[in-house]
């Protein structure tokens, strides 16, 4: 293992260098993760979906807004594998486009939540005076905010000005990401704080302190990497939650504008045609479900993989 200090200069000589067995915490985690069969399958499914969403526009060259009334509300055929909607637009093409947005929203909102949550949790976990309790009070306050009504309220109030600033698509994207991220950081903050409270008293941190490491260095180099496991698990789950939140908003007709077909938006359009075109709702709904389920299983697998106390 590089970085380790030999007991004496002769130690290396005494034991001739054999082919070193690769061993790192990450490799170990991967070994544990592989044993969770469902998580592994989910990871493959999710990667396939991401690849499909990113690469398919190069293969499946049908415009998302190609209106063809002769073909409207047709079930799945070879020309339109997922069928067409009431304007004769190809649902597969729309879903591939929407998938990119849904996944991008999920990942970005997760990043916002992690950033805010880790920062607040870290500050609360390191402070020894009133800052910690005050931040935790704020966290608890945010935890008891009704997220969806507040989300709707914020979107209602700020929609127009953001649209003016970032354009119709970008404005809604920025707003949804910031608001979903801004309402989901609390569990992470609690998690990080709890980890910090126990880690900051550990000997290795004390050693770093004794060696003169600044507080920032203690946090970034020593405490944070050790607190990362549960944070990664929470981050995974948060991606799923953000995708659901975005789809919910679009499903309520209050997310992205109608010409941007996210999965939730396609469902919203499909819900009035359930009796004659059920496939229209089933494909995007199934896609959301499959994505969220895979992410949740991956989170479960990561929980097994990243918790070193767990005996396999």
């Amino acid at each position, binding site marked *: 293992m590089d970085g380790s200090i030999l007991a004496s200069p002769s130690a290396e000589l005494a034991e001739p260098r054999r082919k070193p067995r690769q061993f790192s915490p990450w490799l170990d985690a991967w070994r544990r993760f592989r044993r969770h069969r*469902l998580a592994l399958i989910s990871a493959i499914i999710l990667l396939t979906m991401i690849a499909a969403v990113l690469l398919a526009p190069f293969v499946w060259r049908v415009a998302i807004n190609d209106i063809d009334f002769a073909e409207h509300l047709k079930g799945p055929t070879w020309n339109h594998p997922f069928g067409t909607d009431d304007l004769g637009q190809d649902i597969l093409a729309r879903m591939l486009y929407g998938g990119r947005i849904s996944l991008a929203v999920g990942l970005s909102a997760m990043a916002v939540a992690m950033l805010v949550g880790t920062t607040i949790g870290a500050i609360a976990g390191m402070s020894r005076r009133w800052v910690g309790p005050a931040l935790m009070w704020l966290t608890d306050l945010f935890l008891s*905010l009704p997220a969806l009504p507040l989300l*709707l*309220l914020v979107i209602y109030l700020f929609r127009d*000005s953001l649209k003016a600033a970032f354009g119709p698509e970008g404005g809604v994207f920025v707003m949804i990401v910031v608001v979903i991220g801004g309402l989901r950081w609390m569990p992470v903050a609690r998690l990080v704080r709890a980890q910090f409270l126990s880690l900051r008293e550990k000997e290795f941190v004390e050693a770093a302190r004794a060696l003169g490491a600044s507080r920032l260095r203690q946090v970034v180099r020593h405490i944070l990497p050790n607190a990362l496991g549960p944070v990664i698990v929470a981050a995974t789950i948060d991606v799923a939650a953000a995708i659901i939140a975005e789809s919910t908003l679009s499903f309520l007709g209050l997310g992205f504008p109608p010409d941007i077909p996210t999965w939730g938006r396609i469902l919203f359009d499909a819900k009035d045609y359930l009796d004659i075109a059920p496939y229209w709702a089933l494909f995007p709904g199934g896609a959301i479900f499959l994505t*969220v389920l895979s992410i949740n299983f991956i989170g479960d697998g990561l929980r097994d993989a990243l918790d070193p106390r767990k005996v396999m």
Partner: protein
Amino acid sequence: MGRYLAKRLLIAIPSLLGISVVLFTVLALAPGDPFGELATNPAVPPEVRAALRVKFGLDDPVAVRYIRWIVAMLQGDWGFSFASRINVDTLILQRLPATLFVIGSAQVLALLIALPVGTYAAMRPYSFFDQIASTLSFVGFSLPTFFTGLLFILIFSVQLDWLPFVYRDIDATGWRWYWEHLRQAIMPICVLGLFQAASMTRYVRSAVLDVIRLDYVTTARAKGLGERIVIVKHVVRNALIPVVTLVALQMPAIFGGAIVTEQIFRIPGIGSLLISAILANDTPVIMAVTFVFACLVVLFNLIADVLYGWLDPRITLG
């Protein structure tokens, strides 16, 4: 118990105040005018608008406006709905029972599923039943409520034609009236309840697993109590303590689900009121409904605290 309750109530007040500050800050930061509708209406001359602004104190500093707003809210003066032309509080009171009925029944349904399934799964960890239950619960909380709602409509209304797919006015009387109401409430309650049950089952299972190997359970068995009594009175009661906390923490998510369900099934509750108010730019209603949702979350947290005190007698002493 009384003192414990009073203490909890006192703790709830600052968080309600905090929530109201957050709400008001959002409103105050928002660009545009809450009276935007009047401003664009050409029938309202500018001097009337200015007089209205003065009357409602819109040009005062934020802190003054906040205090006036919170005082008005506390006095029950919640403003006037632009869209429905009635007072906001009457409107909300009309709509609230439907929401509470659906949410309450869904909670009961979730408990009825999650408690037995979770406990049974934890009594036989990693058995066939446990694996089926945990896979199903994963599926359950990965299915967003808006999709389950549509699936239910597709299966039970469109295909099987058993249940009505949206709420509507019922002109039947007597028992038939109750029956029709129940019939149209079945699907929304199931959608919410099953979603809730899925995550609750996981909580119950892990909480029971934590408790079931403790010494006091062995003691209870050793003194000859039946398995049933050991599980129900000794294991489940203690396992419920963390479950109550987690369920209370989930409350905001449940209200989110309720909004979606109300919208799908056209339930005349405050969730669908919120959506229609947003679509109609009806600011007073939006603010009030959001605040009511926040109050409900705090209320349910309070109920959770009371349950906590009942489940764990040590807390009352502290």
